């Protein structure tokens, strides 16, 4: 079963084109990174998937058109946006009680476990929590839901590095299983790289790459050669070219070889910069 099917989705804000003809088939049981520069269309795409924006095209979630789900869509999908949206007039306890009572997929056991980890003050109003605490609360109440699809848009904003690591390494791992799909959009690429199965690169509202991360890394390599071999290097049409002391390096197809060159497996950041923000120096 496909978790999400997006067919020819376009979204305009007035004359500004936020998404253009986006089509994606996202299967279940994958953790997918959605990367793009600021304003590339990541958040807009997520909001289209949630039915919050009007758009051209079609979206199916769990094999059912978006319109047919209505509010029950949120039995299947949970979303963490890139800004704090929890009602600040409620206390932590009231927020937890509210969500646990209105959401049929609330998992009490997991909620309790997450509550212990997050160490949130029950009686405090959400408005009086720090930015990091608010993020923790949102993560807690979202991950306590047994939904099939989780959309995370910069989910760790305001969190310290220790909790960010715990979130991506442990907490998210406990939530995930082969029936679930997680789409993560973040600028902290290196923090999520190790948990991702697939990546989507989006730029100026268009999907420019959607692939399994391992396949992609196996197709490319970072090659470093001495400056005297620059001509040979440039003939390989490298991306993400950088000069270092007496050497030049860049991302090339894995089959490409140059004598005496050093090879390194590209990171996700390398691939991202090569596809979206890379440049070619002559």
């Amino acid at each position: 079963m496909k978790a999400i099917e997006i067919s020819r989705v376009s979204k305009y804000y007035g004359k500004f084109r936020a998404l253009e003809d986006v089509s994606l088939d996202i299967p279940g049981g994958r953790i997918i990174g959605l990367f793009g520069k600021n304003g590339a269309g990541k958040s807009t795409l997520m909001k289209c998937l949630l039915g919050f924006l009007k758009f051209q095209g079609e979206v199916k979630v769990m094999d059912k058109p978006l319109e047919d789900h209505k509010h029950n869509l949120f039995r299947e999908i949970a979303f963490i946006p890139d800004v704090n949206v929890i009602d600040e007039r409620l206390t932590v306890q009231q927020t937890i009680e509210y969500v646990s009572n209105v959401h049929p997929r609330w998992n009490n056991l997991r909620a309790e476990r997450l509550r212990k980890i997050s160490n949130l003050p029950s009686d405090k109003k959400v408005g009086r929590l720090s930015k990091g605490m608010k993020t923790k609360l949102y993560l807690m109440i979202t991950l306590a839901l047994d939904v099939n699809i989780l959309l995370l848009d910069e989910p760790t904003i305001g969190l310290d590095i220790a909790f960010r690591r715990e979130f991506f390494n442990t907490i998210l791992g406990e939530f995930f299983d082969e029936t679930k799909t997680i789409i993560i959009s973040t600028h902290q690429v290196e923090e999520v790289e190790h948990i991702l199965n697939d990546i989507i690169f989006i730029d100026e509202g268009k999907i420019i790459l959607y692939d399994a991360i391992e396949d992609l890394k196996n197709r490319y390599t970072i090659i470093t050669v001495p400056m005297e071999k620059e001509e040979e290097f440039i003939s390989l049409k490298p991306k993400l070219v950088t000069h270092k002391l007496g050497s030049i390096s860049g991302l090339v197809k894995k089959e490409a070889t140059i004598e005496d060159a050093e090879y390194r497996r590209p990171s996700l950041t390398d691939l991202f910069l090569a596809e979206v923000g890379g440049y070619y120096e002559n």
Partner: protein
Amino acid sequence: MRTNQALIKKEVQVIGRKVLLPAWIVMAMYGMLIIGLFITFIIPTGAFSDAEGRKLTLEEIFQDIFPPDFAKHGDLLSYLTNYVAANMVSALIFLNLLILTPNILNVNKKENYELFHRTQPVSIWKMTGAKIIAMSVNNWLVFLAICIFNYIVINILFSILFRSYFSWNFGYGIIGLLHLAIPVLVILFIVNALAALLSAIFQDGAIGKGVGAFLGISIVISIINRVQGLRIPQPYKYFESLINISWIRMPETTGLFVLPGWQHLFNWNTLIHILVGIVYYILATYIYSKREIRM
């Protein structure tokens, strides 16, 4: 059922103590009254004295205030005292509503909470309904609590004051209170549903723009009526009909006064007003559901 309860409970928690403002005002008024009475009766100001400075008795004061045969209208006095007292409380409640209700559907949007609430698997019809019901019932309960407190204080006090003229009728007092309490609940529902509709149409400054639109329509209707010689009813007539108290007459017996009161509450007019409130709610929810959530 669990969802409905959770929604109402959340709305009540969100409204919080702001709904109690009229109660604090009434308490302050009682406080001032006590201080006033203290000053009048304890400190000799001459307010209740005759020209020679002799303190007037209660009977003499009543003779000054009421007509000579006022005792035969004792039941009416009991009814009207409670009806008028409840009216004053309702005025406070509706004034407080002007603070609480504007942008009833837009507060979440303005404060960024909309995404949180709209990502719960709850029908938007239930969400809007819970807001209107919680706001109406919450305010009504505060109104009722103040009225009951007033009822106890006023009726005990008056039964003592008038004991030498007639036996104070507590029953007619309760009827007077109920004759206002029931329409107040209906009007609260209609006003909140109308506020929801305005805030669904206008995302910012809903009440101001709503009043502007109301005045604009009134002016246009006036011009058309004058130029064309038509009699298109003005929209204010509708609001006038909500608080129609034309059935109040000064009858000879209280029975004639009480029965029309009940008849006025349970008639087609009230039912039509409730149905119009439901139409407001349906329109408000429909318009709100078509809105994009951008942030």
